[in-house]
């Protein structure tokens, strides 16, 4: 049949071209990414500043910095913590829950220059603030954490997100079991306490003022002072 012969010839031509391509003699419409080779990975490495500068920037002693760095380097040999590593490290402390959201907020709070990774200097400076700083500094840091979009105001939605992420850390198996609206209630209580003028947002001043009035909060801020 005529048609079949045409078909057969077409198949032969197709095979011919396939063989040509194998020999690299003819590239139809090839986009030029394959020639560069795929091995694009470059390992980012970061070495921290010297001990003296870090000592001056933070309130840790030399020995403390040394032991901190040893632990840091053990876990992150490249000297940088990216968000995924940070999430995985943080999740190990909360085996029952889902730590990824809260870790994400933490990471955003720590990564001040939005570089996408935390260096040892950032790590140790924040640690110094949190552990050796004044209560006001700590409160400022907490405010910064809650203020997700860093506009200076904590809105209800931001607080809901933060609260939900904290409750996510608990996981499923809790007693009493977590209801749906438990975080909303918590947020309501928070706003009741913090929002002085009732405008639905909490500013830095309102926040610090309200916390300073609350002895419980003030005392719990000092809780971790002896961690290192």
């Amino acid at each position: 049949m005529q048609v079949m012969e045409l078909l057969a010839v077409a198949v032969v031509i197709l095979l011919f071209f396939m063989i040509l391509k194998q020999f690299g003699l003819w590239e139809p419409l090839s986009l030029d990414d394959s020639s560069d080779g795929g091995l694009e990975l470059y390992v980012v490495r970061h070495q921290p500043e010297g001990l003296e500068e870090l000592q001056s920037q933070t309130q840790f002693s030399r020995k403390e910095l040394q032991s901190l760095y040893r632990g840091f380097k053990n876990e992150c040999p490249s000297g940088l913590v990216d968000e995924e590593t940070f999430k995985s490290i943080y999740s190990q402390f909360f085996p029952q829950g889902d730590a990824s959201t809260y870790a994400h907020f933490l990471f955003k709070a720590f990564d001040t220059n939005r570089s996408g990774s935390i260096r040892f200097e950032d790590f140790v400076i924040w640690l110094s603030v949190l552990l050796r700083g004044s209560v006001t500094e700590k409160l400022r840091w907490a405010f910064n954490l809650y203020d997700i979009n860093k506009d200076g105001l904590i809105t209800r939605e931001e607080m809901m997100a933060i609260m939900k992420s904290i409750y996510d850390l608990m996981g499923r198996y809790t007693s009493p079991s977590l209801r749906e609206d438990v975080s909303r209630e918590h947020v309501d209580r928070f706003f009741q306490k913090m929002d002085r003028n009732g405008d639905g947002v909490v500013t830095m001043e309102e926040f610090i003022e309200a916390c300073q009035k609350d002895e419980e909060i003030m005392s719990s801020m000092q809780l971790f002072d002896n961690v290192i």
Partner: protein
Amino acid sequence: MAAGVAAWLPFARAAAIGWMPVANLPMPVAPTDKNKCQDELIVLNVSGRRFQTWRNTLDRYPDTLLGSSEKEFFFNEETREYFFDRDPDVFRSILNFYRTGKLHYPRYECITAYDEELAFFGIIPEIISDCCYEEYKDRKRENAERLMDDLEDSKDSKLPNMTFRETMWRAFENPHTSTMALVFYYVTGFFIAISVITNVVETVPCGSTPNQRDIPCGERYTVAFFCMDTACVMIFTVEYLMRLFAAPSRYRFMRSVMSIIDVVAILPYYIGLVMTNNEDVSGAFVTLRVFRVFRIFKFSRHSQGLRILGYTLKSCASELGFLLFSLTMAIIIFATVMFYAEKGSASSKFTSIPASFWYTIVTMTTLGYGDMVPKTIAGKIFGSICSLSGVLVIALPVPVIVSNFSRIYHQNQRADKRKAQKVQKARLARMRISKTGSSNAFLHSKRNGMLNQALELTQLPYRMKISDQSSTGEKRHLNKTTSIIESQHHHLLHCLEKTTNHEFVDEQLFEQSYLESGLQTFPSRSPSLSSREGITGTCCSRRAKKSSPPPNATHTHTLTHPHKHNLQELSAIHIQCGEQQTLNTSRSSLNMMQDESASLNCKSSSQVTTAIISIPTPPTNNSPCSPETPTNPPSNSSAGVVKVSAL
């Protein structure tokens, strides 16, 4: 919790400051780190080779020899180092375990030597990381089987007091046991051969009588062949009946493959005896004789290789199935194409698609009989493509089958697929255990009231320091086994509980309470309810004294009993690695293990002695903890508050 991550614990605790402003309840007190002396290097001298490491590194795993005070027994006063008279090469892997958190199994080591070293240093083999675990398990299994083979060989000597039936069965299964068995073995083999040869020779044309064409020998010498056949069949029948008599489980024997082969081999003869005279069925009778060729399969009892081949084919069933399927697809495709290609040419043999199947099969398997040949150009082109692709399709699964055969042949018929499934299941179980291990550790420590113990806990007594006040032996024992990192981690989780006003619960308990209470959420009632039924006894009386049993203990439940009992059963020697839920792989739960053995008669879960339990609904954010104290054991909370301010 992995050891390396312990370095990040200060960071996580610092980040907990983010919970403080939103917390409902006051925070618990942080465990103090009394022994804040600087980290020091210690020297470990293993048979002359000196290893040095930080003391903190060893403290990561407090339930091993090096991490606990047990190493003090090996301390050498003059040289101020710890001396171990063990293999330094294996010690390298063991020390690396402390450093990196992963235990590796070096391939060049003997498996028993490695096991002994692990046992000495108190490390259980289940912790071996994934990269080396398969190798370790394989070697261990090989070793065990070798030992078992030796055992079997020695067991093969004559056992006294076997019944006649058992002796016969053993003789049938292992012909080498006695001379009679051997004789029987060779006689049956001989007769199988005779029978097969007879069947073959029967059909060969013998010399021709002058008036007729060649007739096969079977028809010429009918009587002789008939006698041969009868003799063979009688021998086979007797053998089958004897096996049937001797079999320990006759039902299982009758279902086995070999016995079916036996039956099929001898049945045609008897059927032939029964229906000789009927002409109609003589055709069928002749066909039945085909089954006599199955006698050749009886040789598989005599040949190990045949059995292996059969087993290989069985185990490669999936590859064979794939081969068959792909061949079928290709045959249909090419047959269709060839049919339509050759339709035009005159006197074409490709009369229909099924007729082209024969051509396709012959071509794809590269046989090429030449009885059907394409004549048109299109047909020739497609025919050549067909033969090329046939080579590929058939060549692909064949190496898999070959390698399977060689593997089975070398490993001598072990059930590999079953083994692979078990390993995978065990591996999944291990991973799950390590994940739940750390959360369980927290719950257990809660139940044991370790959180308040943190106040009095001193750092691991490096030099067997006697803690002066309220030091009983058992308390010191308890102190020893809770590392400071553990207590800090638990404190962190406790802070989270306080922030959210919910508590962590064991998975089983959660399911149970969820089922029981339905959707009823009366958090104010449930703790006290559970405390009513849950108080089955306090753990260590000392703890009960310090904290009067709180009325609202949390979920102490009898359900946890089996769980705890399992923990209890584990001896202090960690080698005894049970199977699933013995929490072997998690280090923090290893910690717990030691706890259980320390607090010896701990029958049930004790109450949570943490002072401030969930007073749920009234929002007491602003007010300090004073309204809550009356309902709580006063000693703990007041002690706690005092300590905090002292800090």
